[in-house]
């Protein structure tokens, strides 16, 4: 691990990414972090935009449908994140 790089900085500052993480990986990490945070906030504040019964969609009141739709969106996001990560690993020649 690249210990020298850590030494140069303030030794006790917050470390979000492991030393040696590439800028591309950092960007990707931040992107998914932001998207998932938005999904969590949307789920917590769903009543701001979907606090109604009509239209009844997929047999559920609109509020319940929104909660379910957000769950599906979350699943898709997680799957995309997993997919990009494992694809990277196999490109590197299967990093363990």
């Amino acid at each position: 691990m690249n210990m020298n790089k850590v030494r140069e900085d303030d030794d006790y500052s917050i470390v979000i990414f492991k030393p040696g993480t590439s800028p591309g990986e950092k960007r990707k990490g931040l992107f998914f972090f932001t998207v998932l945070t938005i999904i969590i906030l949307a789920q917590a504040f769903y009543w701001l935009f979907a606090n109604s019964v009509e239209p009844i969609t997929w047999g559920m009141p609109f509020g319940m449908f929104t909660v379910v739709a957000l769950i599906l969106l979350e699943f898709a996001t997680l799957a995309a994140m997993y997919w990009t990560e494992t694809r990277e690993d196999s490109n590197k020649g299967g990093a363990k």
Partner: protein
Amino acid sequence: MSWMITLSVIFIYLIIVFCIGSIAGRGRKSSVNEYIAAESSLGFVVLYFLMGGAIFSAFAYLGGPGWAYSKGAASFFIMGYCALGLVPWWIWGPRAARAGKKFNYVTQAQLFAGRFQSKGLSVIVAIVSILAFIQYITLQMKGSAYVFEIASGGRIPFWAGAAIAYIVVVGYVFFGGVRAVAWTNVFQGIFMVTTAWVLGLYFAFSLYGGPTNMFTEIAEKMPTHLLVGPGAKMGYVEYSTALLVSVLGFTMWPHLFMKAYTAESEKVLKRTIVWYPTFALFLVPVLFIGFAGIMQVDPEVLGAPDRILPWMFANMNFSPVAIGLVLAAALAAAMSTQDTITHAAGSIFAQDLIQPLKKEKLSDASATLWIRISVVGFGLISYLVAIFGGQTLVSLLLGSYGSIVQLLPVTAATFFWPRATKAGVIGGMLTGVVFNYLIVLKVIPKFAGVHPGLQGLILNILVLVVVSYLTKPMDRKHVQEYVGL
């Protein structure tokens, strides 16, 4: 006579679970790592159900329909947080697993105690966890006792029903450790999900000709029931903060956190997180059952809202075998949570409370024995609390839900903030826990409907940061071992 058939179905279910549990752990060696973490060998399917079974408790199966019936839209919150709960684990899970491999940890408190060089921290975490567990498991016991009561038409009293289910659980956990918990959860999970879908759709279609009609009728009769906010059963702030606290705190539950040590690889861990939201969709039909009950029975006739699921099929002229299957599924929900928590509580008690208080390190064999004894002991104590627990005790334990989320700052500090010190994390955690209890015990009033756990969490972070800066930083090399994971 029909109750005997129903009861037989339930007993057959119990025998199957017991057999799966006993076989699962057979032929494995008797070590702490095997007993608690299955020597990091669990694959995706098993881990998925292990995590799923733990959360789909009696609360989801009996309480979920009860909420839909009595509180309406507030019940959507259960789905939302179940789906999101595991997301923060993407951050902690792999790091905890790496720490486990590096330092041979099998519990959450060991990780904190290692990073902050404090046995006291381990003891505090263990006490907070075990208090929370007792509350959690008492609920499950009431659930299983309830199932037996209905199945036998009141012939099996509360104390006996709770005992039967729990003896089976303690039995297979004692022998099989985490493997028994995992494999029984696979069976129980599949069983629960299937029953829920069949039942939820059946009620919606047979009583209303489909869910759309059902909800139209409900909205006509009770216009605010399917909404949150003023006039509904749950306010805006209450809904949002309850969801946020639950999502942040979910992976802090020690019995879930420590499962990071059981995964075969990081890929397995992450795949479990990806698929976990699908488990929450299983709550859709469960809530349907509760909604279907609204036009069928008056709340005053029903008594407690948790009785809605049993009431529904008791009045549908189902065959005794079908009733037995549904009740067995409810029992599966309760038991699949009981086993995970009993296993975790025994492990934590022995590893994080007894071990640090002993002078010399226990040998592997005697440590495993200690865990087994703790499993039985914890089982007995929580059983006694369920049977004899008074009102004061119950309200004390209620505060434990808000206490668990107080482990979040110390977790984040462990992995991301080298400057955090032992005094900082202990001070922060104690502040958060105490503040949360003061609100729960009504010493200080609740602020604007904000969840007490969230209020405690904010103070907790403040204290952690301030005290850490006021105290001497910890050894640089030591903390980098954890931050660089």
